[in-house]
């Protein structure tokens, strides 16, 4: 579903990604793990077309990164990206208008579960609410691929559980979920496999239960071991 071939990205002589090769299949929930600066965000930006100057090739369901691939991917960035000039309904309208797979029913139910008000101006929302709102929008789409960058970072534990539940509910055998996070313990139970990215290189791509079996450790513990300086 997502093919990443020999992707290398250098910023000013400093390598952010070095010869990354990954083949991510449908029907999986995959964790992209690595410390800050390991290249996770760079890779995600490339997959979403926000970074265009790199070597190598990326194919999303057979397409290069273009308007077609973007219609297949539902992306949740690690920052607030909603325009300030509108209210929630306005932002919803943009999604509804431009994404064929937007599911209004799903959106309304997610909003209710997350205690969000569609009529509220985005200017008046707190940071936490904006994050929940963005997540609700992204998960309201019936996309083939979900790319979530730090989805549980800034939210309270109750919302965290709800987010994990939403991800599981959205799971479909034809879809692929890629989650980048540094809060491994809370989320490792929903992964099929994990990618360890160390200083721009893939040092591991393995099924989680295999890791647990062969290492006798949790993914978080193994992660700490691999990334101990």
């Amino acid at each position, binding site marked *: 579903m997502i093919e990443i071939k020999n992707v290398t990205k250098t910023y000013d002589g400093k390598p952010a990604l070095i010869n990354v090769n990954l083949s991510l299949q449908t029907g999986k929930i995959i964790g992209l793990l690595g410390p800050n600066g390991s290249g996770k965000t760079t890779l995600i*930006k490339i997959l979403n077309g926000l*970074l265009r100057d790199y070597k190598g090739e990326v194919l999303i369901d057979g397409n290069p990164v273009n308007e077609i691939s973007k219609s297949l991917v539902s992306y949740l960035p690690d920052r607030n990206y909603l*325009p300030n000039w509108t209210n929630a309904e306005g932002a919803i309208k943009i999604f509804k208008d431009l994404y064929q797979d937007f599911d209004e029913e799903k959106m309304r139910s997610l909003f209710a579960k997350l205690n969000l008000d569609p009529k509220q101006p985005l200017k008046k929302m707190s940071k936490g609410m904006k994050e929940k709102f963005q997540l609700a929008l992204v998960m309201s789409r019936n996309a083939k691929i979900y790319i979530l960058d730090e989805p549980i970072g800034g939210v309270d534990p109750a919302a965290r559980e709800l987010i994990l539940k939403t991800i599981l509910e959205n799971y479909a055998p034809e879809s692929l979920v890629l989650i980048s996070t540094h809060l491994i313990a809370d989320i490792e139970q929903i992964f099929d496999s994990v990618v360890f990215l160390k200083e721009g290189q893939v040092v591991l791509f393995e099924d989680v239960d295999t890791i647990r079996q062969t290492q006798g450790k949790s993914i978080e513990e193994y992660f700490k071991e691999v990334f101990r300086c």
Partner: protein
Amino acid sequence: MLIKSIKHDLLSTYRDFLSVYSALLVIALIGPFIVNSGVEWMIAILFLGIFGFSVATFVITFLTIIRLYNRRLFSAEGYLTLTLPVKTSTTIIAKVVTGFIWSTLTVIVFGISMLIFGLIYYWTNGAFKSVDYLALMDIIEMITDTGAVWTVIQSVFVGLPLTILDSIYSLVLLVFVMTLINTSLIKKYKVPVGIAIYMVISGLLSSVLAIFHGAAIVFSTGDPMFITGPFDYLTNFGYSINWVSYMIQFIGMVVYIAGLGYASWWLLEHKLELE
């Protein structure tokens, strides 16, 4: 997709214009009465206000167009705009069209305001009290006889496309420069560099066009040349168009617009690096 993008761009910017356009219309409606009142300090404030608002209108139009492009594409909002399932070319075209709509609308609203101001003023000063229809008909006949009406229509037909192209050219140049300064090619002092590049390119392109223009005039017979076209019968009224000049400017503008548009597209497709 294009229509939808334009719609959303317009929606995101109309608020800025609503207040300014309303203010202009209010001044146009109230202004004449203030002038008629003869109260000096009020008139002074009125004209200060008119001046201020006129400047403000054009400044706001200009800034809004810049902000529209910059914010949508290169701020945090870019994470939304650039991941929407819209072709890069569509995004660029939508922004240019939106900019064109607003700049044209500003000119129109401005013109209408002046017209309203003038009409009300003359009306309140007794201009249309008694309408002498016969005299009116005489005047209209006189104007038509001199071919002045045709002249006006002709200059509008001829001049309008070039004005539109010029407007679009400025917008596309703006888009190109803003795109350029936001890529990996320019890292520091983005705004001053941007302004400098705009002026340099603008000057360069005008000079190149002027050279072609001049060369073409030299190679023409010196008298205006006529190509069989839809407007040559209008020359009976003594107005002539230099078609060579016209075509050169027209084609030049189209080439520049296409070139700058393509360059902007290329930059977004290959050099984009969103923070």
